[in-house]
Every structure is written in structure tokens, then in C-alpha cells.
């Protein structure tokens, strides 16, 4: 998946280039990734309760 916000070496190595992270030029994708990460954290928190409960039995 092409996720680079820079397309040429000159652009990448330029001091004027700022964010170089994956999908930096596609803010909606970055927001989607953050949302997915939040969902996973939520899943983990629910699972933590579940495993704790299993050991209490």
C-alpha cells in the first residue's frame, strides 16, 4: 500500500518537508487508523475484565 506523503527523493530530503509518517497527506486515513486503535484499546479493556472474572470463579 503506497502510503508515502513524499514522492521524490529531492522532496523527501528537503529541509522544508514536514510530516513524513505514513498517510500524512491523507488525514481521513490517519483518523481512521486512530479510531481503529481506540476500538482495539476498548476491546482490550473489556477482555481484561473478562479474564479477571474467569480467575475469580
Amino acid at each position, binding site marked *: 500500500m503506497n502510503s508515502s506523503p513524499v514522492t521524490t527523493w529531492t522532496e523527501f530530503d528537503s529541509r522544508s518537508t514536514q510530516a513524513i509518517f505514513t498517510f500524512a497527506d491523507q488525514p481521513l486515513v490517519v483518523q481512521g487508523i486512530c479510531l481503529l486503535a481506540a476500538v482495539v484499546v476498548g476491546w482490550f479493556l473489556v477482555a481484561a475484565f473478562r479474564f479477571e472474572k474467569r*480467575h475469580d470463579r
Partner: protein
Amino acid sequence: MEGDARLFAEKTIETFYFWTGVLMWLIHAGFMIYEAGVTRQKNVLMTMMKNLLTCAVVTPTFFLFGWWIYYAFPSGLVPVSSEAAGAALPWSQQMGPNLQDNITGVFWFAFLLFSFTTASIMSGAVIERIRLGAYLLLATVLGSMVWILAAAWGWSGEAWLYKKFGFHDWGAGGCVHTVAAAFTLGVLLNLGPRIGKYDEQGRPRQIMPHNLPMTMLGLMLIFTGFYAFYAACAVFQVAAPGADPEPWRSIYLTPMTLGSLAFTVTMGFAGGAMGAFIVSRGDPYWTISGGLAGMISIASGVDVYHPALGYLIGFAGGALAVWVGNQLERRGIDDAVGAIAVHGGAGLWSMLAMGLFASGYPQHGNFTSLTGQLIGMAVMVGVGFVPGYLLSLLLDRFGTLRVSRETELAGLDVAELGIEGVVPAGDRSAAGPAERDR
């Protein structure tokens, strides 16, 4: 004044790499404590001796030929004759105190600590039954030859995998973790499982760590040392007089920041621990091992990942490590610490994730790509597995790979070292062979 500023910058660089090397020793303190906790009481001291001697034996061999391999083999199996390769020979002007060279010694030191790490990845998997001499020979070959050859192919500025295919393995998920895991798999196939690991029907039994809290503390030290490991992978250099200031660069000389490590290594750790926790259903050993798998999963692309993407990649890596560990155990591979699952599973995932999520980055003459990553994965597995399998097969044929059944049952501490590593409280009379022989 300009000359003073330049000298100050060079000393700063020298200081930076020196301290990354010093802090990376925490990884080895961690490996020692971690493996000592996993092993049974009767093998504690021998397990720790193996960790200690790994560092001892890899140091001179890496000085004598390991460093030269890195510069001499960037194109394949035929050594090149270059100025850099000549300077890496142990008798060159650069391989000793030299007032005009502020970098070689500290850079060699950082790479030496990478070599310790690679060899130590194997050490935990083979505990409780490998002969010390066989282990040290294997550790020397892995730590001072095999991984550094893989690094020359996939990690150096002139590496053929990078030059021809755009392979990108920023934090050595391939040339350290995958190579070490593949080598270890080759060794375990010849070494076989510990006595009692499988029942008569071939079903695996759990051999419990004798001190799980100690193991968890060891991994926390490894986590700490890994920041230094990653920092040492970043290239810190001074611009030529009159040129623009130099940014931090990856080992491929692409621009980056140390902030990427702060963000993404930590997010990868968090994801890995959470993923392993869920898949292992809250198992403490796998949860903390998953943290390490998460830190490894982001290795290849840590310079460019968005932190939330690093978290998700780490999460998948932690989950994958648990699954791989269970699959290997069911197939008769007794990896006592889950090294292949953590370093191999997450190492391969690291290279693949780079291709899946971070293709299209310019790297001088080419671009990062999924194809380049897949080729790199195949090469890293092959370059690790083949020598590990063949050398351990040879040792096995000569009857020098594994301790005797009697020694294994008695425990390696008493049988091979003549001393008990862990003496039960109130039983100090059993502290040494002299006392015991009375």
C-alpha cells in the same frame, strides 16, 4: 571557531554511540535474568553462564572478523576489496585508538551489542539440554558471522537487497530477529525437546518457569535496553562545511527523527502486550513476551509509521507471537522461551508490515515496496536457517550437541558446574562441591 564546533559535534556523536552501547548491556542483563527465571532450579547457573559467555565469546570474534564481514560482503558471498573493508580489518589504523577517528570504535561497540543480542536470542531456546561447548560455537557463528552477513546484505548502505529491491529494515526486524530465530529453529530441529516436555502420545506438557517474576523483570530490562538498540540504529553525522545541517538519518541515509522511536517503539510495545494478553487469555508470560514482540513488529518501518499504526502493528505482532508459539509446541519444537515465536514471528511480520503499510517511500534510486520486503524475508530466513541447521547437524553427528540423559535429569548446574545455583533456604551445606563431597 568553525573547527572547534566541528570537533565538538564529532565528540557529541562519539558520546552518543558510546552510551547507546553501554545502555544496550541492559538487554543482556535482561536476557540473563529472563532465562534464569524460565529455567528450572537445577539449571539456573548454567543458563546464566551461557548468557555471560555469549558476550565473552562474541566480543573477540566480532573484533577479529565480524566487523570486516559487514563491510566486505555487501554484494553477496564474494568479498569486495574496498577502503571501508580494509579499514575494518583488525590490524588497520582505525581499529584501535586513533586521534583522527572519533567514530569507528564506538560504532563497532554498538554493532557488537547487536551481535550479543542476536546470539542471545538463541540462548534461551536451547536451555537445559545443550552442551556448553556446542552452544558457544553456535553462538559465535550466529553472533559474529551469520547475522552480520545478513546485515551486510540488507542493512548496510551498499546492501544488495536495498540497492536492487528497495528492501527497508530500519530496526533490524530481519537481520537480527528473523535471522536469529531461523538459525535457532535449525538448531532445535537437531537438538530435540527437553526430557519430559512431551508425553508418550507426543502431547506437550508445560514446564513451568521456576521464577516467573524474575523472568518478567528481565523483560523489563530488555525493553529499556531496546530503546538504546533502536537509537544506535539511527545515523548521527555532521554536515560538510558550508552544507545544510544534517538531519538524523536511517541506516539507508533516509531522513528521520529520534522522535519516531519515542512514539512508535512505545506504541508498538503497548500494542504487543495487549494483543498477546487477549490471545493468550491473560497469560503473564505471553503478555510480557508480547510486549517485546510488539517492539520488534514495528522495527522495519519505525522511522515512518504513524504511532497509531505502530500500535496496531504491534498488537497484531503480539497476538501472532502467541499463535506461532503454540503451533511450534504442537509440532514438537521445544523452544523453552518462545524465541522463535517472538523474534521470528514478529520479525517476519515486521518486514511484511513495512511492505503492506509503508510502500512508496523514496530511497535514493528506488522505493520501498512489498516485493522488496518479500524478497528480504525469504533471504533472511534462508541465511539464518541453513547454517544453524547444518552446523547443529554436524555437532549432533559427532555426539557433541546435547548433554547425556543422566546429566539432563540431574541438572546442568551440579552435573557440569559442580555447584548448585539455587540453594534451598536453611541448606547452606549444599552450597558447593567441597561441602557436598564430604
